[in-house]
């Protein structure tokens, strides 16, 4: 019995310590992002490379996925609304659910699967290969050189790609509104405009930035926790990815709560 309580207490302490470490770590990185000296030429080069790998390289695939997936999503939702006789709510559903909730969520899932896992592995491998130690030896600030560009890349990529996803969804909505409801572009635009609130858009962009921050920060954090053994790499990656998904769910829930109140 005592062992159980000990285990429980140890787990709780570990979780609290981990969370507080992550928050402190996030605070350090966040502050560095706004410091001018962070943006050295080396950092800028890393940032450009990160944006290239995260956004530009996958752009064609991302657009194809957003067109197909977005059209499918809009088609299903519009058909359901028509069958339920809730045609007047298509604007609210389109803006309130699909554009401001689902498009950031799907974008962040895609980027997490592709880039967050890569960042996590990269950091773990660097730790195992003692590359981080080498950088420190040369007095290169890891936060400036490795962390800030990746986190900044996460913020920029998620905000831009998510906005692109939303615009693609809105455009495919024109086609589906015509096919399913026989609605012309003017009526569709009016409905969308009536249901659009700038506060929702601002909240969506803010949420995307938060997503971008955490889906790069958490893999970095867990990657840096790897030991100097090769076997620690998969452990660090799996733990990092689980935590990233947990963070995504927490952010989504928090954004919904903010929207409610």
């Amino acid at each position, binding site marked *: 019995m005592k062992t159980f309580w000990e285990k429980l207490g140890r787990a709780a302490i570990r979780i609290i310590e981990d969370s507080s470490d992550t928050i402190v770590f996030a605070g350090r990185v966040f502050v560095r992002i706004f410091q001018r000296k962070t943006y050295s030429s080396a950092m800028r080069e890393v940032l*450009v490379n990160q944006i*290239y790998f995260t*956004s530009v390289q996958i752009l064609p695939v991302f657009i194809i996925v957003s067109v197909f997936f977005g059209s499918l999503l809009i088609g299903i939702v519009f058909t359901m609304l028509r069958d339920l006789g809730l045609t007047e709510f298509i604007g609210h559903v389109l803006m309130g659910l699909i554009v401001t909730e689902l498009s950031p969520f799907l974008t962040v899932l895609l980027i997490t699967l592709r880039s967050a896992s890569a960042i996590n592995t990269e950091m773990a491998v660097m730790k195992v290969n003692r590359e981080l130690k080498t950088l420190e030896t040369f007095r290169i600030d890891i936060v400036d050189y490795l962390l800030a560009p990746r986190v900044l890349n996460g913020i920029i990529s998620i905000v831009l790609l998510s906005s692109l996803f939303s615009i693609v969804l809105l455009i495919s909505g024109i086609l589906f509104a015509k096919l399913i409801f026989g609605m012309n572009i003017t009526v569709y635009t009016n409905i969308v*405009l*009536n249901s*659009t609130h700038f506060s929702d858009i601002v909240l969506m962009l803010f949420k995307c930035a938060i997503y971008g921050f955490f889906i790069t920060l958490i893999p970095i954090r867990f990657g840096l926790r790897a030991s100097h053994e090769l076997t620690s790499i998969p452990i660090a990656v799996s733990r990092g990815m689980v935590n990233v998904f947990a963070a995504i769910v927490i952010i989504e829930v928090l954004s919904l709560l903010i929207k409610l109140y």
Partner: protein
Amino acid sequence: MTMSREYKVGLFISVTLFIIVITLLYLAISKGTFERIHTFTLSSRSGEGFTENMPVVFSGFNIGNVHTLELNKEGVVLIYIKVPDRHVKWIRSDSSFILYRPLIGSARIMVNTENLKSPPLDPRKIPEVLTVNDINDAIAKIEPVLDRVTEIAENIQVLTRNLSDPKGDFHRVLGNAEKITTNFASKKSLVEMAVSDPESVKALNESLKKLKDITYNIDRVLVKVDKMADKTDREIYGENGALPHLNIILKDIVTKLKKLDKTVDNINSISTDASEGMKDMHILRSDINDAVKSIDDVAKKLDAIIGSKKAPEFRVP
């Protein structure tokens, strides 16, 4: 042309940002963010159903929204609505404002303007908002139905009470039904039960037997009549029957009549000719009559001459 990594990233960020900015700008312009906003004040005795940001609708189109709600010193709820400049034309001095609370969906303030040429609504004027409540309307419609349902339920209760009452009508009917079935079981037939006299039943049975014989005989007669009718039918309408012969004869008569018709036509033309000849005969006759008259005149003259002279001499023409 190979583009550098920096160029591609720069292009991606610029184009995406441009698209986002254009979209946001379009939204801002379409939603009237840069437009002049007019504020009107409405009043209501109750604030129930009103919420901030509630849409203000004209002919089904969103023309504004509720900005704030306020309770004044007199206990009247003041509703401040904001209407963009391009939609302010729909709000006139004779406009009426109705709070519409549908059964499904969010509530909205509906603007009805009778005359769009009437002067614009003065922002200092505070019109009252009327309330249309779908829920209350639905309840009002359901109430009579519920009354009827209650009535039916009461009737059903009365019926069930009667059914369960041992001295009630139902039990009495059941008792009578039992008596009838007992009678059915004891009597030989339903008729016996009805007339209560075995002799009459016997007489009725005999009559029925006779009636049966009579109907049998009638049946036989009818069969014979049927056969006769068959035979007659064959003789009249059969292949060698009278009717086909009559038909042939009639056809022959028709042919002959047609020929006769031609003959009559010929006679008619002959008689017409004869009639015309007769006209000529009349002329001839009148000529002859004239000639005879002339001869008669000559004779009379000759007689006169011969009578007056001794030696009559006359010159021959």
